[in-house]
C-alpha cells in the first residue's frame, strides 16, 4: 500500500477568488485511520473528492505512492469512497451490488464470487446477499456501500464522508466498531470525515482538524485535547470548548488588566510584548483558596449542574471563564474566587496560533 501525498493542493470553485481548500502539502500515511474533523463548509468533502479524483484540484499535485495521479480518472485510482447517505444500485441484489465494481473492471467470474463472499462475510452480510438492496435498513445499506469499496483488491484507501449521518445512534456505535475492526483486519488507509468530535476522537489513530480550508492541527486525539495548536482546535474539540481570555504581555509576565496571571514562556525564544490571548480548557481550571499562579481572580456568575460534573461560570473583565468542577460544588453567584490553571495546560495564542504557555510567576518553570 502507498502513502497519499498532496503537494500544494488547493481548490477554488469560483476561479480563484476564494479558496474552498487553501493550497496545502500533506501526507496521509499508509495503513492509518484518520479522522478529518471540521465544521460545515470547511472543505472536507472537497478534500476527499480531490483525493478520489472526483474533483481535479485548481493547483497542486496528488501522489499515490510514487505515482502522480493528478490527471488519473477516478475509476483508475485505487480509492474507494463512501458517501453521507447510502448510495446503492437499488434494483440490484446485495450480491450484485458488491460484484458491480469488479464486473465493471472485467474480473473473472470465479474471482468475483470469491471476493464478494469474503467481503460479505467480513461485513456480516451473508444472510442478505440475495435480497434487493433497497429493502435493507439504512445501516445495512451503508455497509453495502462500504462493501463495494472493500471488494476491490487493489484499493489502497477508503474515504468515508460522514458515513453515519443517516444512521440512528445505537446503530452508529456498532458500525463504528465494525469499521475499526475492518481497518484492523484489512489495513486500508481510512480517512473518515465527520464534524462530530467524539466520533473522531474514538475512531482515529490521528485526527486532522480542518478549518476554513486549512489544516490547523493534526495529531493523536489526546494531543489535540491537551495541547491545541490553534484556537479553533481548542474551541472545536472538547465540550465545553477552551476558555479564551484576552491578555497582555509586559515585562515577561502575562497580565489581564492589572493582575499578573503568570510568566510568559515562548515556544521558540522570548515572546515580544503586546496583546495575546490566554487559552485554557475548563478541565484544567481549578477554584482554589491558595492564590498560586498561574491563575487569576474572577467573579462567579452562575453554576450549571450537568449531573456528573458542574460548570462554574465566571467573568474576568467581561470575558467569560468556565471551570469544570466535581458535582455538588457550592459557589454562590457574585462571589470573587481565584481560578488557578494547571501547570503546562494554559497556553498563549497570537493570531489564533499557539505561541507559548504560561508558567508560575515565582521563577519555577511550570511545565
Amino acid at each position, binding site marked *: 500500500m502507498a502513502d497519499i501525498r498532496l503537494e500544494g493542493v488547493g481548490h477554488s470553485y469560483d476561479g480563484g477568488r476564494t479558496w474552498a481548500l487553501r493550497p496545502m502539502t500533506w501526507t496521509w500515511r499508509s495503513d492509518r485511520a484518520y479522522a478529518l474533523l471540521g465544521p460545515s463548509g470547511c472543505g472536507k468533502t472537497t478534500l476527499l473528492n480531490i483525493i478520489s479524483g472526483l474533483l481535479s484540484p485548481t493547483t497542486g499535485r496528488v501522489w499515490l505512492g510514487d505515482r502522480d495521479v493528478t490527471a488519473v*480518472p477516478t*475509476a483508475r485510482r485505487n480509492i474507494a469512497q463512501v458517501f453521507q447517505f447510502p*448510495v446503492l444500485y*437499488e434494483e440490484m441484489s446485495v450480491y450484485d451490488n458488491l460484484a*458491480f465494481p469488479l464486473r465493471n473492471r472485467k474480473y473473472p467470474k470465479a474471482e468475483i464470487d470469491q471476493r464478494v463472499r469474503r467481503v460479505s462475510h467480513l461485513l456480516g452480510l451473508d444472510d442478505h446477499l440475495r435480497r434487493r438492496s433497497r429493502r*435493507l*435498513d*439504512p445501516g445495512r445499506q451503508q455497509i453495502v*456501500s462500504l462493501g463495494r469499496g472493500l471488494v476491490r483488491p487493489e484499493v489502497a484507501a477508503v474515504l468515508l464522508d460522514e458515513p453515519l449521518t443517516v444512521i440512528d445512534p445505537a446503530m452508529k456505535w456498532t458500525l463504528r466498531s465494525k469499521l475499526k475492526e475492518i481497518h484492523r483486519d484489512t489495513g486500508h488507509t481510512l480517512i473518515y470525515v465527520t464534524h462530530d468530535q467524539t466520533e473522531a476522537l474514538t475512531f482515529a489513530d490521528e485526527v486532522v482538524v480542518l478549518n476554513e480550508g486549512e489544516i490547523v492541527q493534526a495529531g493523536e486525539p489526546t494531543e489535540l485535547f491537551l495541547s491545541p495548536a490553534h484556537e479553533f482546535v481548542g474551541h472545536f474539540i472538547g465540550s465545553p470548548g477552551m476558555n479564551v481570555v484576552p491578555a497582555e504581555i509586559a515585562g515577561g509576565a502575562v497580565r489581564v488588566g492589572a493582575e499578573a496571571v503568570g510568566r510568559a514562556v515562548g515556544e521558540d525564544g522570548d515572546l515580544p510584548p503586546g496583546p495575546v490571548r490566554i487559552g485554557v480548557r475548563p478541565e484544567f481550571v481549578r477554584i482554589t483558596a491558595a492564590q498560586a499562579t498561574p491563575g487569576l481572580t474572577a467573579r462567579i456568575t452562575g453554576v450549571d449542574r450537568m449531573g456528573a460534573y458542574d460548570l462554574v461560570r465566571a467573568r474576568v473583565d467581561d470575558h467569560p471563564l468556565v471551570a469544570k468542577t466535581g458535582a455538588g460544588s457550592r459557589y454562590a453567584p457574585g462571589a470573587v474566587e481565584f481560578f488557578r490553571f494547571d501547570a503546562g495546560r494554559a497556553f498563549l495564542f497570537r493570531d489564533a496560533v499557539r505561541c507559548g504557555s504560561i508558567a508560575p510567576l515565582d521563577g519555577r518553570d511550570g511545565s
Partner: protein
Amino acid sequence: MTGERLNDVSGDVSGEVSTAGAVVAGDRVEPEAPVGAALPRDEPGGQADTKPRNNRAWFLVLPVVVSVAFTAVIPLMTVVNFSVQDIFSPTDRIFVGLDWFRSVSRDPEVRAAFVRTLLFSAQVLLLEIPLGVAIAVSMPRHGLGVPVALVLVALPLLIPWNVVGTIWQIFARGDIGLGGWTINNVLGVNFNYTLDSTDAWITVLIMDVWHWTPLVALLAYAGLRSIPEPYFQAAQIDAASGWATFRHIQLPRLRGVLTIAILLRFMDSFMIYTEPFVVTGGGPGNATSFLSILLSKIAVGQFDLGPAGAFSLLYFLTVQIVSYVFFTVLTRTGR
C-alpha cells in the same frame, strides 16, 4: 375478511377491534423494514383506539364533489341519457336499452378504427418514450447549456394542435412542402400522403413524435435532475460505463416520471383528433381515421346521437381501463 382487516393500516380500525389492532401493530414491525418507514407503525394499536373520532372533516370535500359533479358527472350523464334512447325529435324518443352499445361494438368500421388507434398509440409510445429519455439523458446538467436546451426542446409543446396540423400539412406536401419535396426529389422516394395510406400514417405518426416527444423529454429530464450527485460519483468510483450508469442509476430512478409520461402519452394519442383531422382528414380512405375522427363523424356529421353516445362511453371506458392497467403494471413491477 379478518385478514383484510388486519392489513388495513389506516386508523379506521375502530374501537370494537382493539385486540385486532394490537395484532396489526405487532405484525407490522418487521425487523428488516427501513427505520423511516417503520416509524408510523410503531404506535401500539390499543392506544389508537381510545382516541375520539371526528369525521366531520369529510364536509371539506364537499366543494370538490360539487364542482366535479358539474364539470364531469352531469355532462357524462347527458351522454348516458343519449346512449340508451333513440331520439327522433326533442319530443319523440324511445328507450332502447343497450342496443346502441351492441350495434356500435359490432360495427366493423368502429372495430377497424379501434385497432388502428390502438396501433397508433402503441407506435407513439414505442417511439416517444425511448426517444424522450435519450434526449433527456443527453441534455446538459450544468451551465449555460441548460436553459438553451430547455427552450429548444420545449418549443414544439408551445404550438397549438391545429397549427401543428397545418405546419405538417404544408411541410409534408410533395410540391411546396420542404419535407415532402426533399423526400421526393432529393431522396428519390415517391411520397404523397394524400394518396398513399402508408405515407399518410407515417406523416401523422412523425408529426405526433415531433409534437410530443419534448413532453417526455422534459419529464424525464426533471426526473434525472433529481438524482443526487453522489450516485454519479459512486458510479465513477465503481468504474461503471456510461451505459451501466444509465441502466442502473438513471433508468431505475425514472420509473415514476416515465409512468406519468406513458399514461399521458397513451391517453393523448388514443384520443388524437385535431392534427390528423387537419392533415389528412382521416384519409386517404380510412387510413388515418382514428376513433375520435370516426366519433365526430357519427356525432356531428350524421347527428346520430344514440350511437355516438354509446360510442363515447365505450371510448371513455377503454381509455380508463388501459390507463389503469398501465398504471398498475408500472407501479407494481419491480417492487
